[in-house]
């Protein structure tokens, strides 16, 4: 009787039946839905940690485990600067000491410092360097824009910061040390940037950095990055940005954000003077492209031999394709980060066709990427492993299973592989081993069984889901459910690993059109025969090996639920005999559980003209699903017995029961596991019956036909009219997604109310207008001389 969630606002819910929409509330998107089976070793690309493919704007570096350099990747420029300082000291001090002195708070004035760098400076009387370092520390407090407290500008121009610029400029005049001059000049540029003094920045850059011919170092590129930031939008700014981006890893995110993708790349390339500069432009062009970037990769490959950048870009392209192909292929969600921009598709059959068309096109693009990848030779071992993983995965994406297995031969040479690459290849191989089997004969090969358990422990839900879906697509729905029953078991609802997926059967009929649990999925998708097959297999399983124990663990616990689901499926088909057979196998423990006792706590054989879910005076008895079907079958038998003088009475009770098993009655749980105002988890199998109460209507009419009492016959017609009202409203809502029905129009279209008026004019007003008249008319049967 009760509803699980919201039970009000039925008219609103009806508006939403006609199609899915993420109107309000939570709806999975972005990383919630992105298919991401592989977990690449991103640590090998420390300079690109902000640009791993993700629906989030960027991955924060903390999310990247490990760091091959052993030093903070976001401080790569600082370490280059450290190297410059060491060079000044003929590489005598330890790099860590230099770093600590330049970026830490080590006392610079101590001649006998424990810091080898500071000691070296004092020993060599390099007082100008010490003065510079002290000054740079003072300046570092000013390295941020601050909002203007006077609210005149967005950011404040601080007099104190301007004074520092003046001090630096005065020191430059007195210095002859070219390196320190450039360092002071850089400080001026940085201070000027944060102080909104573009003229000073530009003139300082032009004087000290613009004409550096050879041996550019991090000071040039740091200065260039600030120069790029103040350049007005255009090809020149893109050029500056690209050059700085190439050489300043720690400022890449900021630089990429100001790269203007709308400017044709040729215009930017026109400013580049050599191959290296052009490669820098193509690199940033590729990084800034969330869509297909193969052209940029090809250009970059032709101009540059930087294997880190190219390897990263290839991996990024493969990760994009993983999303574009497998997110829709396995989950029926659109790719998390769409190639063609953000918009929402209707979830219907035409959408499915569109998704399939796109998947086909993206598989073709995967072939192009694969062709490119096969042409490239990578020398670095770690990057080469990355390329092998990419090539194997691309083969799988293109459904070239033979090529994929050939590429996976690398697994036979374990010494050449790092752990991450080896694991990725094993995942790819597992999917390939399922996908390449002929439909109808697919099984889970022994080879991948331990991997499934291992990945379950690692919460790689996407991998488990991929295996389950491949099994399903190959026709093995039983094994698919075995695996699917373990998906999401180890992950929290809001974890990125958690899998959400849609089904085609849910298309276009439900607001919440996705699943995250095997039971809901079976409830929607599986036929009674498939469920029966699953139960049979489950009960016939006698093996005690680890994999069997793993795959059957949850389903064995849920056996009663599965029988209940089977029976419920038969109810939806109005196959009461088979339904009863299934319900008889459900343990009493389940019927006594809270979910069942609280939702089947009313008399399903009682109904009146108005009541739906509230308690009534008829609720003197309750039933389980099993006893309800048993009783219904016995009433049907009595109703259809021509010799029974009370047929009308039993037909009426049967009709009441069917009415109560719909959305509009107190025993909706006979057909649904959830019910709320949003029409969640709608079922195509009996959707019409659930909202239109057609069976109830037919039995009310049979009751009328069998009745010997005019008043009772009129009541039966009134109840049939109530069912007709539900049918008319449901039809209106299906046809009019964004409109409210007109109650008067619905009433006037009701043929049973019209018939009531014509055939029983004396009873019409009483039955239509007096909500208290039900009992009076029901009792008329007895006055007409019948027994019950």
């Amino acid at each position: 009787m009760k509803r699980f969630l919201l039970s009000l606002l039925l008219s609103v819910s009806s508006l939403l039946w006609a199609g899915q929409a993420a109107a309000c509330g939570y709806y999975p998107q972005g990383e919630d839905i992105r298919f991401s089976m592989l977990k690449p070793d991103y640590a090998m690309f420390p300079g690109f940690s902000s640009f791993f493919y993700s629906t989030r704007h960027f991955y924060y570096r903390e999310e990247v485990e490990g760091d091959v350099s052993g030093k903070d990747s976001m401080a790569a420029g600082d370490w280059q600067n450290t190297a410059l300082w060491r060079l000044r000291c003929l590489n005598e001090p330890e790099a860590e000491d230099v770093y600590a002195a330049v970026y830490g708070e080590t006392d610079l004035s101590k001649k006998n410092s424990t810091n080898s760098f500071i000691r070296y400076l004092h020993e060599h009387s390099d007082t100008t360097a010490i003065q510079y370092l002290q000054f740079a520390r003072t300046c570092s407090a000013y390295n941020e824009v601050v909002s203007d407290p006077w609210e005149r500008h967005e950011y404040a121009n601080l007099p104190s910061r301007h004074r520092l610029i003046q001090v630096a400029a005065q020191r430059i005049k007195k210095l002859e040390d070219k390196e320190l001059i450039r360092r002071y000049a850089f400080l001026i540029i940085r201070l000027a940037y944060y102080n909104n003094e573009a003229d000073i920045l530009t003139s300082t850059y032009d004087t000290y950095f613009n004409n550096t011919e050879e041996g550019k170092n991090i000071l040039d590129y740091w200065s260039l990055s600030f120069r790029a930031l103040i350049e007005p939008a255009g090809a020149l700014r893109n050029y500056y940005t690209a050059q700085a981006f190439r050489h300043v890893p720690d400022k890449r995110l900021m630089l990429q954000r100001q790269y203007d993708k709308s400017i044709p790349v040729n215009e930017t390339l026109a400013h580049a003077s050599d191959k290296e500069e052009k490669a820098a432009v193509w690199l940033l062009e590729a990084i800034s492209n969330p869509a297909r970037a193969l052209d940029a990769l090809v250009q970059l490959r032709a101009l540059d031999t930087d294997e880190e950048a190219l390897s990263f870009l290839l991996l990024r392209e493969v990760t994009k394709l993983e999303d574009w192909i497998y997110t829709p292929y396995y989950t029926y969600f659109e790719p998390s980060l769409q190639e063609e921009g953000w918009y929402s598709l209707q979830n219907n059959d035409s959408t499915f066709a569109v998704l399939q068309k796109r998947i086909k096109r993206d598989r073709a693009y995967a072939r192009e990427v694969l062709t490119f990848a096969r042409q490239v030779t990578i020398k670095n071992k770690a990057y080469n492993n990355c390329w092998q993983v990419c090539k194997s995965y691309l083969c799988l994406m293109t459904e070239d299973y033979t090529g994929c297995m050939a590429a996976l031969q690398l697994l036979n040479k374990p010494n050449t592989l790092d752990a991450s690459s080896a694991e990725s290849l094993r995942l790819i191989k597992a999917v390939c081993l399922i996908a390449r089997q002929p439909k109808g004969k697919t099984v889970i090969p022994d080879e991948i069984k331990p991997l499934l358990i291992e990945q379950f422990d690692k919460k790689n839900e996407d991998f488990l889901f991929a295996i389950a879906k491949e099994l399903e697509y190959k026709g093995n729905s039983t094994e698919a459910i075995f695996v699917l029953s373990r998906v999401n078991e180890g992950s929290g609802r809001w974890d990125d690993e958690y899998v959400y997926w849609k089904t085609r059967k849910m298309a276009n009929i439900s607001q919440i059109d996705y699943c995250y649990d095997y039971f809901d999925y079976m409830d929607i998708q599986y036929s009674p025969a498939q469920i029966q097959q699953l139960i049979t297999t489950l009960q016939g399983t006698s093996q005690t090996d680890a994999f069997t124990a793993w795959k059957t663990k949850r389903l064995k616990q849920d056996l009663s639920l599965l029988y209940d689901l089977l029976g419920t499926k038969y109810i939806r088909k109005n196959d009461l005999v088979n339904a009863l057979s299934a319900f008889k196998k459900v343990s009493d423990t389940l019927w006594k559980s809270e979910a069942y006792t609280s939702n089947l706590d009313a008399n399903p054989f009682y109904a009146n003209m108005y009541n739906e879910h509230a308690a009534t005076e008829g609720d003197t008895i309750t039933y389980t699903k099993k006893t309800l079907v048993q009783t219904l079958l016995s009433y049907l038998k009595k109703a259809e017995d021509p010799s029974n003088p009370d047929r009308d009475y039993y037909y009426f009770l049967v009709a009441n029961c069917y009415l109560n098993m719909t959305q509009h009655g107190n025993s909706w749980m006979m057909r649904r596991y959830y019910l709320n105002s949003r029409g969640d988890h709608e079922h195509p199998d009996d959707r019409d019956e659930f909202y239109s109460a057609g069976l109830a209507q037919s039995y009310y009419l049979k009751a009328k036909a069998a009745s010997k009492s005019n008043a009772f016959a009129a009541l039966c017609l009134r109840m049939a009219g109530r069912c007709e009202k539900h049918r008319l409203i449901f039809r209106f809502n299906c046809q009019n997604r964004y409109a409210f029905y007109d109650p008067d129009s619905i009433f006037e279209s009701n043929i049973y109310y019209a018939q009531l008026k014509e055939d029983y004019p004396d009873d019409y007003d009483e039955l239509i207008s007096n909500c208290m008249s039900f009992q009076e008319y029901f009792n008329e049967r007895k006055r007409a001389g019948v027994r019950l």
Partner: protein
Amino acid sequence: MKTIRLPFCLFLSRFSFTPFIILCILLVSGSCKKKPGGTEAERAFYYWKSNEYSLTDAELNQVKKLQPTKLYVKFFEVKSDSFYGNIPDSKSQLHMHRFQGFSYEQYQDSMLRAAFNNMSVIPVVFVRNEVLRNSSHGLLDTLADNMIFLIDKFYREKYVNMNKPYQEIQIDCDWTIRTRDQYFYLLTQIKKRSNKTISCTLRLYPYKYTDKMGVPPVDKVTLMCYNLIAPLDHEDKNSILHTGELTAYLKKTKPYPLHTDIALPVFSWMQVYQHGQFTGTVKAPYDNIMPVLKQIKPLWYEVTEDIECGDMYLRQGDRIKMEDVPGETTHKAIELLKKHVQLEEKITVTLFHLDEHELKRYSHETLSSFFTAFRQ
């Protein structure tokens, strides 16, 4: 009596007979100052809170009942920061504009419109003395410019639909003889750049010692008749208003050379002393603390039970100096002002400050009498 401004100028242009001019000056100045019918006090309040978005209902009701024609709102303070330089601080969040939408805001809006129908808002800026100590003329030029910009901006953004531009800026500052020149320079720049009437608050010390402290280059001053002595210096004296101290300051031979308005206190506070040391203040309301205080001598109380009060935790035995200004004391002060200050026929009397908890300590009649007493 009418003031005679234009005839005085014409007179000067036609005659050069010195004794006669002197006589005329005396007559004219006398005609401005003398007031057989008393002084008409234009009603005004200070609004000194920084964090309130709007007036409370109680404050709106006071405004409606007392009908002040001016509200002096502290828009912000200016402090000196080693990193930023001279910057605004404690910016006012007060808004007075018409709301649309929810019923409560509509209700407030109608209250506001009724209350502010005949009232002007006058921006006040408190300049900390340290700002003046550390600023060259160049920095003060910039400061004046910034202050006017921010005043304009606040008035434009927070006082929408006041239907009239502001006419006056008031500067509040505890300036000293060491910062006098910078302060006067700043005032001059504000006047020059804003083209508004400029007034400033005037403590009693510079009021009395005009020769030593100079006269600020403003259009008028508001004499602050409160905070006469350092709060912690005199245990037995009320530091907010002590009529004996006030008398001493008001007695002087020469009238102040600028139009002088009056500011009177309607506020209170409690000074908390723990282990003999001043540790903070408690401000109204005092409803929860009064039951645990026992008076031990005039102005002084002892805490009888531990109690949390605002952000302070008071322990049994702590001492409290409770200072407020009873209506009778204010009236004594008004009588002293009428006796010793050459008040013009029409002045502004401003009560410090508009706060529901402070104002509810006085009856409406008492508050109203603070204005009307100047005429009697």
